[in-house]
């Protein structure tokens, strides 16, 4: 079963919105980007989910993300 087979209402119904919004606050832009992509899919065509994501505080971190200047960087481990 691929993710395409799971209706977005079902994903929202199992409580995905809150952890995805939490993921938007992570340091990693990779995590933020993936969370934003998932929320975009969940909201698409579903008024209930659009409302739920806004109520969960999803808008403000996305607005911040629009102005983010730097991607993920880590210090390489010794011997890399």
């Amino acid at each position, binding site marked *: 079963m691929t993710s395409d087979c799971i209706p977005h209402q079902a994903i929202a119904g199992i409580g995905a919105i809150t952890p995805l919004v939490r993921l938007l606050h992570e340091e*990693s*832009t*990779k995590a*933020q*980007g*993936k969370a*934003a*992509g998932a*929320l*975009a*899919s969940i*909201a*698409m065509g579903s*008024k209930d989910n*659009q*409302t739920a*994501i*806004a109520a969960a505080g*999803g*808008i*403000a971190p*996305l*607005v911040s*993300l*629009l*102005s*983010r*200047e*730097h*991607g*993920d*960087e*880590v*210090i*390489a481990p010794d011997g*890399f």
Partner: protein
Amino acid sequence: MPARPLPSPSSRATTRPTRAPPPRLGASHPSWRYSKVRARLANHADGLCAPALHASAHHSAPLRVSWFEGDGAESAKKAAASALWSFSANHAQNQAAIAEAGGLAPLVALLGVGGAETQLQAAGALAAIALDNPQNQNTIATMLVQLLTAPDTPTRTKAARAISNLARAHTSNQEALAK
């Protein structure tokens, strides 16, 4: 790893019959338990790319490594614009909420910079946020006109590109921008 030959039925019968036979693959080594996990990780690793070095090895500062393909910030901005587009489509309350959260200015800024795909998502988001919302239309148009009358040519050029993208995103923007 070549599969170990199956024990013959007779030899299995001599072992404890109530017990499930051990997994064949790698069963000779205790690490067989982890082979499946490793195989799964290997599948996921296909989606990752080799670290890209941002600094030369002889540099005295700690080596900084970007682990992800392309520009992570650019990709995240594109996803954020896409999400805001999705949130605001035919949703008056979210259209207003995104404007109140200060989302219009960075979306307008993205229209003139960044990759073509990011510009497209930003234009789509702004079109959705402005649709049937005169206040947001006015704010966006004002921002664009300010950019268009900026003292420096690069900014004016970006503004022109932004207007072009936005007008293309939705026909209703053409009317708002022409006013």
